[in-house]
């Protein structure tokens, strides 16, 4: 429930940010830099005099957008590879799983770091890098689920009666995959948020003045000792968002996965 609450408020904040009558998150005001929290600036101002509260809310929008884009990208690849591999089988399965095995050997953040380092910094490059490496593990799971579904009797009989592949996939296989996908996706958003923030922290991500939590953390590093608030606020935002998605994912798994519903003894 807490997870749902956190995620919903994050989504609401992100969606409504432009209409919340907040200060412009990119408007600098040098005389009012590094102000402590007050009525006009509930979370104070940053090193360029921008309103921290407004930046955190807009940052949530950006972070969420980035995470969902990455997720959509990696899920599309994972679904395509997983279903094709599991449903088609044979040499295609062997070849695709070979590629998956190969890519599994590259730790994702390190590969993303290398890709982002090679392409140059930028939020889009980070998203591409993260999306391009994130699908690998999921492709395996989706393949396994597809494989399982394919061997069920009603799918077998559908094939025998000459139903088209696409029809079988949509009618019989997809319903089996949706559960695991929803769980993986919600658990993943947390990981992706952490990963993107990590790349931003290393200076490879969003470019100014984009309000983005990881980039805000990176901007605040010089103020670690003099204005730790500037690190703590985006840090807490990342923490709460990740926590929210993890809780949501856990809850969904309990709901959708009958295995964990068993009570021992």
């Amino acid at each position, binding site marked *: 429930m807490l997870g749902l609450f956190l995620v919903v408020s994050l989504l609401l904040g992100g969606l409504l940010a432009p209409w919340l009558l907040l200060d412009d998150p990119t408007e600098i005001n040098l005389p009012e830099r590094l102000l402590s929290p007050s009525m006009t600036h509930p979370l104070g101002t940053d090193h360029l005099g921008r309103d921290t509260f407004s930046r955190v809310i807009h940052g949530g929008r950006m972070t969420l957008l980035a995470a969902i884009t990455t997720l959509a990208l990696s899920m599309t690849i994972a679904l395509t590879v997983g279903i094709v591999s599991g449903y088609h089988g044979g040499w295609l399965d062997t070849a695709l799983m070979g590629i998956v095995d190969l890519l599994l050997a590259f730790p994702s953040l390190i590969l993303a770091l290398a890709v982002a380092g090679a392409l140059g910094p930028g939020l889009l490059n980070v998203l591409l890098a993260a999306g391009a490496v994130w699908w690998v593990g999921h492709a395996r799971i989706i393949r396994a689920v597809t494989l399982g579904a394919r061997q069920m009797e009603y799918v077998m009989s559908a094939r025998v009666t000459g139903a088209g592949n696409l029809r079988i996939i949509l009618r019989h296989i997809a319903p089996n995959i949706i559960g695991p996908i929803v769980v993986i996706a919600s658990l993943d958003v947390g990981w992706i948020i952490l990963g993107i923030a990590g790349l931003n922290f290393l200076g490879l991500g969003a470019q100014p003045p984009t309000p983005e939590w990881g980039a805000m953390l990176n901007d605040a590093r010089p*103020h670690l000792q003099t204005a730790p608030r500037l690190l703590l606020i985006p840090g807490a935002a990342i923490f709460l968002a990740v926590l929210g998605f993890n809780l949501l994912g856990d809850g969904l798994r309990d709901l959708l996965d009958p295995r964990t519903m068993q009570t021992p003894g």
Partner: protein
Amino acid sequence: MSHSLRILSSVLALLFLLVACTPAAPGTTSAGASAESANQGSQSAAVADAATERPTLTAGVIWLDSPLDPVEGGYVSTQSALSETLFRLSGTTLSPEPWLATEATHVAPFIWRIGIREGVKFHNGNVMDAQAVKASLERAIRLSPAAADTLSVDTITVEDEQTITIKTTVEQPTLPGLLILPALAITDAAAADAAGEGNFIAAGALTGPYIPIEYTPKERLDSVSNDDYWGGTPPLAGIKHIAIPDTNSRELALQAGDIDVAINVSPNGAQAINAHQGTHTETSGIGTSLVLWWVNFERGTLADPLVRRAVAHAIDRESIAGLVAPPGSGSFAELLLPDALVACPGVNALGYDPDAARNLLAQAGYADSDGDGILDKDGQPLEIIIGGYPERFQLPIMAEAAQAMLTDVGIKTEVLITEWSVVKEPAWDLFGWYNTVVQGGGDPVFNISKFAGLKGDASGSGTNNYGHYDASRLVDIVAPSTSVSDLEGRKDIACEALAVVTEDAAFLPVAHVNMVYGVSDRVTGFQAHPTSHYFFDHRVGLSE
């Protein structure tokens, strides 16, 4: 339970696979060997410690990556008190002062006579005489293109044990200043060549108060005291340098007592260090590092003088300077060079004036025809890109502040913080840059010419000029300087040149930054040099 233990231990055993999986057998041995020699290094330092009861100082630096051999572009040796040059840049007057030389006389337009200090020995015990200095300079000219290019030497002649004469191919009125270049540190040429590449430490070919014993680039550099040092025995048993690229980590390490000196701390770090008990900061009185924006003439947008002047008016550089180099760590750079090098009262830069900027843009034909808040001309929006690299914390902040100011006058602005080697790629209009302005021994003409891509004799392609500024107007001003050796005359030339580049808005200087060092209260005799040429000398010590 025993099963579970076995599984647990097999899990742990898997971990150690990592250790076992080193790329190649020879690699593994070399790793072992270097770890061993590192141990020996610290042991021998410890032995020296015990014998003389002198403490060892530990310093944290940003970069530690250049080779120790000065001719390989190495600044590390001079910086770390391992090597010395004939002349040294004074920390107070920013002019050359004798170091391994005793004097220099300009005997004829092309000829300098240089006296060599007596009683100097290389670390290997060989005596540094005129012959050795000649061999060292000749080796530098042979192996370092930058050194050869800077000096333009024709011949070097040994007059007697302590005197050489240098004949140059062009007039070099400021030769002592050029001899400050770290690549020209005096080296035992025969020993260095005999030791061969990768074995420079063994050659003992340098002269400084500390002797390198172990160097792992990008990690650490350990040195021990040179007890035969010509300037007197150093009070330390040795100095350990650790590379700590992250500014926060460097500042925190100082406060935690892991290091005694933190080279380069940020204004915020300085605040924390001064508030912390047992540490304080030492700041050089003069800011000799310039933070500026190169203006890209090649990309087109800023080639239009009206737009260029508008941009100069639109950015409140003085406020930004207050942001990136607040009092105590630097000052506003209205002109390229700090007053300490040359003061030009008659030359004024374009000041902050957004209305003037808007007028100039209107004159240039820009108007907001579609009402989106961004000016445009012929259907094209007015857009500029501000670049910079992240290692210098000033550059991203500067870019972001300027971005907001330019947006205010209707210029769409993008910020691109990227690794600095892309500076040549014409993907930017303004590029933030941080570097010293005391090259060539602090000669003002040399430093201005360098920005515009001119050599000291006003011939082209001297150096950076990253923005492809057309320096033709400067040539006639700078060329006569080859025959002017008195400082006042050179300053007049420098002011004339500054007036031209300022009027053209050829570069946008922001701040002159001081060197700020974080220092433990135990450190004694520390001199905060305004450049990053010399971090330590033979006087620095550590009390108990």
